[in-house]
């Protein structure tokens, strides 16, 4: 090797250069990974808030209490002109589903929850997947994950009193006039005595993609076929698992059915805003019937391994730029990561008995 005269003089400079290159690389990676904090609300912040200080290990961090379902979707073909997904061609596909109540507590009394949910997961024979989580309200109160984070913070129990602070809740809703539609729904909503008699909404809009690749924004809802709707106080004395017991009794008699109704947007509707309802005159398409035939307790049930991430979509349905919709993917994955790890390590930290 030749030794140039400059080499010795430059050697310190060269070491410094190497040091700077490596330092910049390492620093920027740790920065990207959020080790120095993150100016935005992250999926981890969200799940920390949702699970509260004492998470229930092994359970979903939101909608923790529920039951697994088994059934099939019988498509009538009416949606096929709007979406190329094989799910909507006349015919049937089985699904794994879940009824749940909002909240992080898998032992919560069924009737105390303000929101009930219905989630579905399909795998088609051509290897496509569709997952959806639907809630009883037709809209959410806010448009962005940041505002949703504020909302959850305002609704969280105050550490001093153990109860949410009404003044904070009031201040939040005043600062967010877009929550009017949600609050109006809340005032007129009457919970029923069965998961089978509620209507569940996708809330977020999606694009249906037809065979030619043309897209049309749409929302969907599971509309109950059961006609025996009763107010929830009919089962007020049935204990903490009142809804689950009612469902079990009902399924022992006959399947539980819903119409899967799609509402198609007009040019004037903003498909990225989950706080507004579209006018009543929008085109409705009944895509077919969801037929639930079986249920199982969730922890060993077929739905336990599934995260109902609404961004898992088949060819023929695409996500819109709705910020709430797009925020759900990373948050659901974080919740899944945590409960999967706890399940693997068999970690428990709360009384499990009675948990379904």
């Amino acid at each position, binding site marked *: 090797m030749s030794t140039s005269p400059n080499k010795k003089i430059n050697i310190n400079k060269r070491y410094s*250069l190497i040091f700077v290159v490596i330092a910049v690389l390492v620093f920027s990676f740790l920065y990207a990974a959020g080790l120095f904090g993150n100016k*935005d609300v*992250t*999926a981890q912040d969200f799940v920390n808030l949702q699970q509260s200080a004492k998470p229930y290990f092994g359970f979903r961090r939101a909608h923790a209490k529920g039951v697994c379902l088994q059934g099939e979707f019988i498509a009538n073909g009416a949606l096929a002109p709007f979406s190329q997904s094989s799910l909507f061609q006349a015919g049937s596909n089985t699904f794994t589903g879940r009824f749940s109540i909002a909240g992080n507590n898998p032992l919560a009394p069924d009737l105390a929850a303000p929101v009930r949910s219905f989630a579905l997961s399909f795998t088609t024979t051509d*290897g496509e997947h569709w997952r959806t989580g639907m809630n009883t309200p037709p809209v959410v109160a806010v448009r962005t*994950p940041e505002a949703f984070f504020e909302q959850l913070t305002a609704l969280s129990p105050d550490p001093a009193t153990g109860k949410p602070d009404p003044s904070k809740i009031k201040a939040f809703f005043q600062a967010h006039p877009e929550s009017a539609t949600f609050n109006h729904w809340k005032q007129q909503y009457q919970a029923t005595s069965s998961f089978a008699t509620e209507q569940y909404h996708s809330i977020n809009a999606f694009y249906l993609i037809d065979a030619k690749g043309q897209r049309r924004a749409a929302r969907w809802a599971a509309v109950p076929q059961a006609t025996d709707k009763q107010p929830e106080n009919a089962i007020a004395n049935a204990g903490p698992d009142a809804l689950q017991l009612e469902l079990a009794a009902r399924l022992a008699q006959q399947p539980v059915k819903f119409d899967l109704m799609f509402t198609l947007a007009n040019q004037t509707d903003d498909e990225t805003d989950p706080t507004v309802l579209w006018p009543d005159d929008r085109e409705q398409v009944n895509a077919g019937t969801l037929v639930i035939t079986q249920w199982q307790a969730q922890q060993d049930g077929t739905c336990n*391994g599934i995260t109902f991430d609404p961004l898992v979509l088949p060819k023929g349905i695409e996500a819109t730029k709705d910020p709430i919709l797009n*925020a759900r993917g990373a948050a659901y994955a*974080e919740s899944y990561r945590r409960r*999967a790890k706890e399940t693997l390590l068999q970690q428990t930290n709360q009384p499990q008995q009675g948990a379904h």
Partner: protein
Amino acid sequence: MAKITEFPASAKFMHWLSALLIISMLFLGVSMIQSLATWQHTALQLHKSIGALVLVLVLIRLINRLFMQIPALPADLSAMQRFAAKASHIVLYALMLVIPLSGWLMQNAAGLTVSPFGILNLPSLIPANIKAYAVFRELHGLLTWSLFAVIVLHISAALHHGLIRQDSVLQSMLFRFKNK
């Protein structure tokens, strides 16, 4: 066999392409798992697609590597340095293979199919299972962070060869645009 001083152009090309892709994937990976932004969904699709592409690229690279003659290390390197160089290269190749595989298995364990760029559906290697998800999700995290650490060592060593020792090692992987 004639002694060569550089890697063949095909090897250089695949080295720099996979370096670019893998470093981007590392940064993308750690950012996207935190992000609630609207780009997150597209980023994740891209992550899985490029990850699958990296797997193919690394397989081609390894096959290419088996059949090509590579430049010898400088004669004045200590046995320890030779061992470190060889071992770190084996670890790099192993991680580049196992990381995309763990991503693929993680998706299968979650009950999902990997379909790179929407072109084809990769087969499901394992059935859906939440415990398997935990294993492959945590492995994917651990292995990617280990890969980053090994890459830092690799770059430090390459720069040490190029700038301090000024031997043939860094040169052997660089493209030469000037005529010698």
